[in-house]
């Protein structure tokens, strides 16, 4: 299952807080796509994913100050 979380306009740490919340309700192997525009989340989101043991399957910049990251739940 794939789920998309739009956190555009949200400042840190809310993209991460939201992502954690949604992730809790997902099952192993599910993918969560997070679209965000808070610069500091380019550091906090991949770090959280790595430390929690999830897999990052996609991480790229879409346009000026706009990014997407896909995290697969462990």
């Amino acid at each position: 299952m794939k789920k998309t979380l739009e956190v555009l306009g949200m400042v840190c740490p809310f993209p991460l807080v939201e992502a954690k919340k949604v992730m809790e309700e997902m099952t192993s192997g599910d993918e969560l796509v997070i679209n965000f525009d808070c610069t500091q989340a380019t550091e906090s989101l991949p770090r959280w994913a790595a430390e929690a043991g999830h897999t990052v399957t996609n991480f790229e910049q879409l346009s000026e100050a706009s990014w997407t990251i896909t995290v697969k739940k462990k």
Partner: protein
Amino acid sequence: MSQMILTGLLCGALLGFVMQRGRFCLTGGFRDMYIAKDNRMFYALLIAIAVQSIGVYTLIQLGIVEFSAGVFPWLAIIIGSFIFGIGIVLAGGCATGTWYRAGEGLLGSWIALFGYMVMSAMMKSGPLASVYNSFQAVQTPINSMAETTGISVWVFIALFVVIVIGIVVRELRKPKVMIPTMKPKRTGLAHLLFEKRWHPFFTAVLVGLIALLAWPLSEATGRMFGLGVTTPSANILQYLVTGDQAVINWGVFLVLGIFLGSFIAAKASNEFRFRMPDAKTSIKSFIGGNLMGFGASLAGGCSIGNGLVMTAMMTWQGWVSLVFIILGTWTASYFIFVRPQTKKSAATATTVKTA
């Protein structure tokens, strides 16, 4: 005047650039100590303090830099720092953080900055100056830790540096987690400057060096201090409404430089865009900015002036302020991040839920 403009802007631009690229956010760092049990950014701050401390006291020893610690208005420092800590969580960034996020195009930070500048000016030369003065009256005469204890300041610095080295070694020895990165689109210098993720400890060393550089540059123009954000931010507004050139100093160009440097870094990294927050975030930013201005003015410094500079100078003001700023961010984080979560999970606990 031209020297003041040039070196102030340059030093500020360096700081803004480094903080933007290094994602050097003290608010996030203090908050994460509590909500994520992550001390990385706090350790980075300690590194920056250590670098600056060794450097500035060497320059003092050589007679290049002058510094007087002054008095220790402890009540103002404690209350002001705590309120400042609450404010930076609401504003989504400390004073410097707000300046550099404004340079990234975050309009919420522009709102916070406005509240911060107005409140600081009100505290320094406006109707709230009497509040400031009555708090300042509660003081002890000695601010320098070396003077209070009669121990050489170098003993304090040596002890602190040993602790910091210990922390860094322990942190770097920890098994590394591979942090996923974006596929590089650039090469060479452009990649290193505008794309690569900077290690927080590397950024911290640069911040410490810039904080050190600020001392001789600022003192050459007659302003006898290092990095400072709050008074200069108030000075900008004071100048704009009174036209009085006497309030213009090196610090004014420093803070304008932070904005400029961050803008350059963000623009070159494709990270600049005007971003408008929703109404709720905007109001929070405005309240946060006001609390930040009130607290930092009362405490005679923000997370930079007190937390980075006065700590490096080994003063009671710096360390007491740092502790209460952190306690303030934790208090605000409890109400904004922790309590809503625990309330929610308490509500769902009645329905059977598998983890």
